[in-house]
């Protein structure tokens, strides 16, 4: 007998092949079901590690966007508050100009002074504006920043602090979110409460009204200048928001590149595996059911 003897039991080989095919099909089905090619770390260890890092970045971006949402409300409130302050000051200035008119009777001037006094309390209330329970012009103090104090020349006292807060709206991007009220309303460049108080005093005494109006005009310019801070901050959050949105898109693209199942590939792989499985099953079915014994009669 010179021919090579073959293993008469092909079954274990066939069963191993079948097992392998079934395993591949299970994996392919899982990939199709989840749409992800990395369903456990061993599917692609380096990819799995990458996914963790990208997911973390993506969660940071989400959190920056949430922060922007929260501080934008604060910025809008501050901005519109300062816009009202500006409007109210404009009215006070025109009242002052009116009061400076020498033809006005004492009673008329007193009426003007009364209206300016009304403006004064309006300004006080604006300077004490709060957003979600937090006074926005108190620096970092958690207290009503301006209180009435007749001993002061301006008639009010600032009891907030000069602290400022910053909020992270990007990696390494800290945006200052507030200006202390002392800087906005009672700064050295222009103290609106002092100017208003001076105007009321001058109206009542009918002396130096012109000077008081000038002082108020300076304070008005100063506050308008301070308001720019919030406008800028709003702009910055908006452009950062745009950047973060594109970042989200880019991160999810990276996620897909690393982790998404190639549906076409997987589906055709699955089809191949199924064909191979059918073939293997047929091979098993066709393993000789008979031997030479059946033919010996």
């Amino acid at each position, binding site marked *: 007998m010179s021919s*090579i*003897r*073959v*293993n*008469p*039991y092909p079954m*274990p*080989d066939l069963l*191993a092949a079948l097992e*392998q095919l079934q395993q591949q099909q299970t994996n392919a089905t899982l990939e199709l079901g989840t749409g992800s090619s*990395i*369903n*456990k*770390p*061993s*599917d*692609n*260890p*380096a990819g*799995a*590690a*990458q*996914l*963790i*890092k990208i*997911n*973390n970045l993506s*969660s*940071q971006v*989400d*959190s*920056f966007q*949430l*922060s922007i949402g*929260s*501080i934008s409300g*604060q910025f809008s409130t501050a901005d519109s508050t300062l816009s009202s302050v500006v409007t109210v000051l404009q009215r006070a200035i025109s009242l002052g100009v009116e009061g400076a008119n020498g033809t006005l009777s004492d009673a008329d001037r007193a009426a003007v002074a009364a209206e300016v006094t009304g403006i004064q309390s309006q300004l006080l209330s604006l300077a004490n504006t709060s957003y*979600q*329970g*937090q006074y926005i012009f*108190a*620096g*970092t*103090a*958690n207290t009503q920043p301006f209180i009435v104090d007749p001993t002061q020349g301006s008639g009010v006292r600032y009891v907030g*602090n000069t*602290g400022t*807060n*910053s*909020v*992270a709206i990007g*990696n390494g991007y*800290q945006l200052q*979110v507030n200006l202390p009220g002392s800087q906005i309303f009672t700064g050295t460049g222009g103290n609106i409460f002092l100017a208003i108080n001076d105007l009321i005093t001058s109206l009542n005494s009918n002396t130096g009204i012109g000077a008081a109006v000038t002082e108020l005009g300076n304070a008005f310019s100063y506050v308008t200048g301070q308001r720019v801070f919030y406008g800028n901050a709003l702009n910055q959050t908006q452009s950062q928001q745009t950047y973060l949105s594109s970042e989200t898109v880019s991160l999810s693209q990276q996620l897909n590149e690393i982790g998404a199942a190639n549906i076409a590939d997987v589906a055709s792989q699955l089809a191949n595996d199924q064909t191979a499985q059918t073939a293997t099953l047929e091979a098993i079915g066709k393993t000789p059911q008979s*031997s*030479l*014994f059946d033919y*010996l009669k």
Partner: protein
Amino acid sequence: MSSLFGALSIATGALGAEQGAMDATTNNVANANTPGYSRLRPVLTESDPVVEGSVTYGEGVTLQKLESLRDPILQLRIEDETQQQGQLNTFVSAMQQAQVQFTSTSSDIASQISNFFSSLNQVSTDPTNLSLRQSVLTVAGNMATVFNNTSDSLSQQQTNLDLSVTQTVQQVNTLTGQIASLNTQISQLQGTGQDASAFEDQRDVAIGQLSSLIDVSTINSDNSLTLTTSNGTALVVGGQSFSLSTQTNASGFQDVYAQGVDVTSKLTSGQLAGLIQVRDQTIPGLLSNLDTLASGLANALNAANAKGFDLNGNPGGNIFVPPSVSGQGYAANMAVLITDPSLIAASSDGSQGSNGNVAVLAAVQNQAVAGGQTPTDYYSNIVASVGNDVANGTAELSSTQLVLNQLQDQLGSISGVSLDEEASNMVQYQRAYDAAANVVTTINDMLFTVINMSTLTT
């Protein structure tokens, strides 16, 4: 001397030899599906001839023995591969279990770390907001819990593996006992010149099973077989087996002893080695990585909190229960120390509305807190290493499986029973038997003729 009776005895001998050959075929067919069975082959030889003058008379056929077809070298290679396979199989299936802990979900360690820092960032937008602060504590609790659970699951798996070590040692002892008693039977039979192939087959099966459990070296000398572990400790010497035993070690796990010597770390293949590798190296490595990460995070966050002031204006204290210096076992015991959300030190100057210290706390996310890496990078490396272990183990396992299949194919081609072959042998033996029987009949006729010769002459 040539005679009719001589011819008769040759024919009878042939009948016996063919019957014996038929026995081999019958036994082969009967054991066609018996695991480990090595087929038998009749060894027929010409009987010594008788020389008379110038004529040499053949003396027929002798059935020397029924030889069982085996390849000891191939058998050794199969045992070797089986040991590899046993080790890899155990390693891979244990690591697949461990891997589940590191599979990406919305509540895994990585996600909880991200969640914690996200929620911390939100505090900066409204530092006096208690509900924002509370959610930081809640998420911190979740983060501690996922460290606890991951660590506990791994420890639990370690305990299960330890149980398997004890069970495997018992299986090894049962098998070495069986092999020793088979050795005795084989050497007794071989000593009296008898065929011991049936027992040899059984022994091969038992050694095969043993190989999947532990690394054994087989030393086969005349009539005797010695099995040792790879470091040379005897498991079976002839008819004597030496049991392995287990003893509890300092970590509370079972160490394996062979004849009083601790061989735990010396086992290199087989299921036992795989179990011990995962129990004593891989899982402790993962646990210690988790401890490093958890304690690094807790220390860094505690330190960052201490740099600021809480809502009451007091200097910040610990957020997490402080880890021990080594950090050992911290992942299992990580816990949030504070329950009062106002104790988060968001303020950098003591004023309530300040958020300056939130940036310090949040910066921990990008600090090298564990092994010189950021928390997320460190964790992602743990995941990659678990994934690599499983992926490499699986690849090695399937290549070992392939080699093993090929070797078994090869062994099957030598020792396996082919029914076709047996059928053709049967025909051959049957025809030869028929022919020999015909010869007997013919000689009988001839003898009849001789016996009746006298009658013919009268």
